[in-house]
């Protein structure tokens, strides 16, 4: 490795080979995914987020909620997510096609939120929880949120649903 050009060429090959092998291939495989019905003629999923939920997503990102909450449900053989009630089916790539920035998360200090909308409390209860969490719950108080931001965050959290069938992950009847 006395020759600089050879060394750089080798390193470039390592990076380029892995990048094209993993990322370009993945983009080719998944890049054309879009909304789809579970069965022909059915409604398209995932649903588009309502406007208030889009604002709420920005609040979710600003507060750094992704540091403690994931949004991905793993299949039954890979962890106990479904058994713990986080979802009714595993998350698939199609679930995220409408998200400009996916928020899969890497750590669960709190519960997974991929399908939170399906088990959420009422809007008022959720807003109250965010402002003043119940004693003993390891969640910070967000009393500083204005009513508008709180309502938007609640709308976003309630919009999180993966309880529909998709071509890759059918719900069990």
């Amino acid at each position: 490795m006395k020759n600089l050009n050879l060394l750089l060429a080798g390193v470039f090959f390592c990076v380029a080979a892995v990048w094209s092998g993993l990322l370009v291939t993945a983009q080719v495989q998944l890049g054309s995914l879009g909304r789809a019905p579970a069965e022909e003629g059915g409604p398209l999923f995932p649903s588009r987020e309502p406007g208030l939920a889009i604002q709420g997503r920005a609040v979710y990102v600003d507060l750094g909620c992704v540091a403690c909450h994931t949004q991905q449900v793993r299949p039954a053989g890979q962890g106990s997510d479904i058994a713990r009630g986080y979802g009714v089916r595993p998350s698939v790539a199609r679930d995220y096609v409408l998200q400009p920035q996916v928020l899969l998360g890497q750590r669960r200090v709190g519960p997974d939120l991929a399908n939170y909308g399906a088990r959420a409390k009422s809007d008022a209860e959720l807003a109250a929880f965010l402002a003043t969490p119940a004693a003993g719950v390891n969640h910070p108080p967000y009393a500083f949120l204005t009513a508008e931001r709180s309502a938007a965050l609640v709308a976003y959290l309630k919009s999180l649903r993966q309880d529909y069938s998709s071509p890759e992950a059918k719900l069990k009847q």
Partner: protein
Amino acid sequence: MSQENRPARPPGRPPESGFARLSRTEAGLRGPFLCFFTSAVLWLVVASVLALVAAVKLHRPDFLGACEPATYGRVAAAARDTFVYGWGFNALFAVNFWIMAQLGRFEFRNGWLATLGGATWNLALTYGVVQVIRGDLGGFALLDLPREVGPVLLVAFLLSALWSVVAYARRSGGQHFVSQWYIVAATFALPLVYLLAQLMVLWFPTVGAVQALAHAWFVQNLLFLWFGASALAAAYYFVPKILGRPLGHYYLAPIGFWTLFLFSGLAAPAALLGGPIPVWLQSVGVVASVLGLVPVVVLAINFLSTLSVDGGWGRSWNSTTLRFVVVGVVSFLLFGVLAAVFSTRDLSAVLAFTSFAEGQVQLLTYGAATMVLFGASYFILPRLTGSLWPSTKLVHVHFWSAFLGLLVAVGAALAGGWQAGHQPSAPSTPWALAGSVAAFLLLVGHVAFALNAFGMILASTTPTSEGRHD
């Protein structure tokens, strides 16, 4: 290995410097080195304070609860960014360049360019961290600075770090050593990876799940090919140099080098096991993670065979530099084994999303890279400043606080993660408390290091070889 006008040295042993006074090589890089180093130490103290606040908030979520900028997500992101981009990058710029200049006898004549790069880097980072605290952060760890900061950091990186490649290209005598390969490769690979990740995640986002994969690939490369490779370069330099003997089984080093660079990035999908990416990618990630044991074995043979001869371990303990560096080497080997073993499906299924992965990252970024950087500082700074370390007590406080903090932080994260994976309903507070204790210990150590380092720099006189603490 040809040598011109130079006495022969055995392969696997870096050339001696032994300068009585500041050499021309060192004189040229003194200014840029001190610029990067002082910035790095300041960022380290800031990162330590933020990390302590974040650690406390994990078991006292109402701590500073009324203050929106102190939200856990923001503080944790700011702590991570200041540690990685503030401390890690600045310190690696400085140490990498010093090693390259020493090994290549490179006389640096354009220090202002590197200093300009350093100033740009730190200004952009300061802006980015302030924006993160204000709530302008993304959803991907280590890519969470505002996206407009990315191109500035990239340019600053090129101005600051590419001198290492120049130093290799213009080295005198044509000699080469394993440390140089690692630094050149790391310096060349990281901007490529950063650019591609920025494009795929922030500027022209790919379809949902591919973003997550691109992010995992970026983090994997950042950890292994920048922090890991740079730390290994320094370890490869200091261990044989201070022990005064050739590196054991040096002929294996190229195998370790190339396998590290090939398998590290390929292992990225292992971070998304069970996630919404194709199963074949997950399998590739697991296989590459296990193959990552190959460079770890090579590194273990290189370092352990060098340290196990002629009382090497004992001599390492008695050298401030080597004490830190050896902790770094052992941490890297441990990290490599953990990364391979715990990427398998069964273990990942249990430990994913717990603090276990965080413990592994700490083992690399702090246990390996930071400890090696501390060791390098104790070797280099007296040579460049011509001053003694002002306080031996602070050196001891620094080592023991950093070492114990590392043990407690990594131990609590791994044990807490293991418990959370096996008993999700068990209370996590004791482990979070231990994390706060570790963060406090690290802060104490870093303040001691900063006081000593700034005391030394302020007392800087005409550089001589006296007063070295290596």
